[in-house]
């Protein structure tokens, strides 16, 4: 009996020790990212890796300034990671379950999922941070109190891309597009076409190919693009479709005979390396990856990520990190305002219009009534040097040059000729 009592007492003691080591209950954060399906390898897992790395480093209190505080204001954080695969309907149901188990939600790569979950997060009064999806419609068509997006919207990808194309090739007279036939691809092409026409009204559209998502094979589309003789070819392809387009297009001269501009091409740099032909114009949906400014904070992030996962971080990893840092910054700002354990309302008040240091530069929550981030953007060009692919001629665009002003809709702003 005495032995049982001793074991019980020891167990109780060790449990108490563990609790006091953490100090407080952990803050639970639901993470939604693709863990299966075609977007998992392309974005979902690199994003999850970003979340896990940062959560671990924050809990260990080893993050560089200005995030040296442990966890969120001294509280450890705990991630509850779920799969984004399955479509918007499934994600709405998943969010309803997840919201009961966590304090905050960070997630969503697909624009379709973002559009579907935003009103549900609002209804559930659950502070939800969208980290990657690109559609500008989230805060342009609606207004939310509980929803934030720390990733810039897709409009600036194509605005900056059009500026870059024309700065380097002012005599361009014709364009063509190959994009995936869903919200992301359609919006991207509309923005690029409008931006090109706003900047150079006489530009002619030769063809716009809208392919089925994950079609993988583009033989007929490449023939059409080659025949079109368009000077510039725009694509917002990502994942396997992007890699397939490069693998199938390069041997056929698509990249040699045309200026190819890939708005979301950055992840392919690590995957395909020197298989991407010279002179391909590439964006990273923000100042991420090889486009990130050369700051100590960014160097630390790149090294820590590379060391842990043996691959460089891609833009999804950057955006995941920024979402977690944004929420931490808001939480700690609310704490500094006097709330030791701030509630959702206090964190929201602190989050609105917040400017925080992200990996890749400053993130300003300046659109969508303080709920939508803007960042600078950067575009560059590929060049094969020996056995490595380098990004050259990088041009940076300040956030206010490539994003609409508060209250304006992206498409109308672009069509107006970027009037402020």
């Amino acid at each position: 009996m005495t032995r049982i009592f001793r074991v019980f007492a020891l167990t109780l003691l060790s449990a108490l020790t563990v609790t006091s080591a953490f100090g407080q209950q952990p803050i639970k954060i639901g993470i939604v990212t693709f863990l299966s399906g075609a977007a998992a390898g392309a974005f979902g897992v690199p994003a999850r890796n970003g979340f896990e790395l940062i959560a671990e480093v924050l809990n260990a209190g080893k993050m560089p300034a200005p995030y040296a505080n442990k966890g969120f204001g001294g509280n450890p954080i705990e991630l509850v990671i779920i799969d984004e695969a399955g479509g918007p309907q499934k994600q709405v149901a998943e969010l309803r379950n997840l919201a009961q188990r966590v304090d905050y939600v960070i997630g969503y790569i697909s624009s379709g999922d973002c559009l579907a979950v935003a009103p549900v997060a609002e209804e559930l009064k659950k502070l939800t941070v969208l980290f990657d999806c690109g559609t500008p419609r989230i805060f342009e068509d609606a207004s939310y109190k509980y929803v934030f997006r720390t990733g810039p919207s897709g409009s600036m990808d194509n605005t900056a891309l059009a500026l870059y194309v024309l700065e380097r090739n002012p005599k361009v007279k014709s364009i063509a597009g190959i994009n995936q036939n869903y919200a992301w691809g359609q919006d991207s092409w509309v923005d690029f076409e409008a931006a090109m026409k706003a900047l150079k009204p006489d530009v002619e559209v030769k063809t716009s190919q809208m392919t089925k998502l994950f079609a993988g094979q583009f033989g007929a589309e490449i023939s059409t693009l080659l025949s079109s003789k368009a000077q510039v070819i725009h694509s917002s392809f990502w994942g396997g479709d992007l890699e397939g387009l490069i693998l199938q297009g390069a041997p056929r001269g698509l990249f040699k005979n045309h200026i190819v501009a890939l708005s979301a091409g950055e992840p392919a740099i690590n995957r395909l390396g020197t298989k991407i032909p010279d002179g391909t114009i590439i964006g990273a949906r923000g100042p991420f990856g090889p486009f990130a400014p050369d700051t100590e904070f960014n160097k630390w992030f790149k090294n820590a990520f590379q060391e842990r996962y043996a691959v460089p971080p891609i833009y999804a990893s950057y955006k995941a990190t920024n979402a977690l840092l944004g929420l931490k910054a808001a939480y700690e700002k609310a704490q500094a305002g006097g709330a030791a354990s701030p509630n959702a309302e206090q964190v929201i008040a602190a989050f609105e219009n917040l400017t925080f240091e992200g990996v890749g530069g400053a993130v300003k929550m300046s659109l969508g009534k303080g709920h939508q981030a803007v960042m600078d953007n950067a575009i560059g060009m590929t060049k094969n040097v020996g056995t490595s692919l380098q990004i050259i001629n990088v041009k940076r665009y300040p956030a206010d040059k490539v994003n609409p002003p508060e209250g304006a809709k992206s498409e109308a702003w672009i069509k107006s000729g970027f009037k402020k």
Partner: protein
Amino acid sequence: MNDLLAVLFDGVVYSSWLFLMAAGLTLIYGVMRILNIAHGSLYALGAYTAATLAGAWLEAGHAAVGTYAMLAAAALLVGAVMGPLLERGLLQWMYGKDEVVLLLITYAAFLILEDTIKLIWGVESKLLSEPYSLPGNFQIGELAFPVYNLILIAVAVVTGLAVAWALYRTRQGKLLLAVIHDREMSAALGINVDRVYLATFTVGSMLAALGGALTAPAIAVSPGIGVEVIVLSFAVVVVGGLGSLGGAALGALMVGIVRSFAVRYWPEAELFTIYFVMAMVLIARPKGLFSAPEARKI
């Protein structure tokens, strides 16, 4: 004129790929009355295995030309392992059940195999571009096309002819045709129906894997590639008539060429074309182009 020829060529390339997939699907349906959704996973397994084998071949420092043998080996390996495994291990216990039940079972197998692929190969895409770029290009007018596309067409034609020859010119093929026409009567006459089923499913699986293995060099082999394929090959099989090899060939040609013309001249309608062809054929012939008349059994 060259433009038209280029569009036709693109259509035939796409048709060849579709045919390799649809041939296996229609063969299995014709003999076993199973609409095999797991066919998409066998395609994906073929692609992943091809990328792995050919990748290992290149890494070992062997000549790149040997990668073509690796593609063929991948198709044979996947068919020889997965065909019997699925047929003996799963499907044989379900024969006699309703077609819908069998369809659901193959769907379950599809989901399991998709996760198995993820478990083995992870979620990162696999690349194997050497066999695609190795033979170089040829020209149709001003347009460059990879010679690899000619290989794909040749393999599809040879495979189609070989399967047709085996079906209609060999004793085993005739036994198989007898099973297609009347399973019970064939069994009563002493044909080993179980063996015919096993052989059919294995050959069908090899065709799916061959489709995947031949596609691997042109694409990024990534999770979910089997999903798209099963939808497309089902459309082709329905157009041709479920169970008809000739129907699969004609269906693939129709769908491939119409799609190619749409991409060039009416890109907005491209997604719609496959289903448009299917709808038009089904309005005229509700059981597809080459469906055999069914005898009424009393």
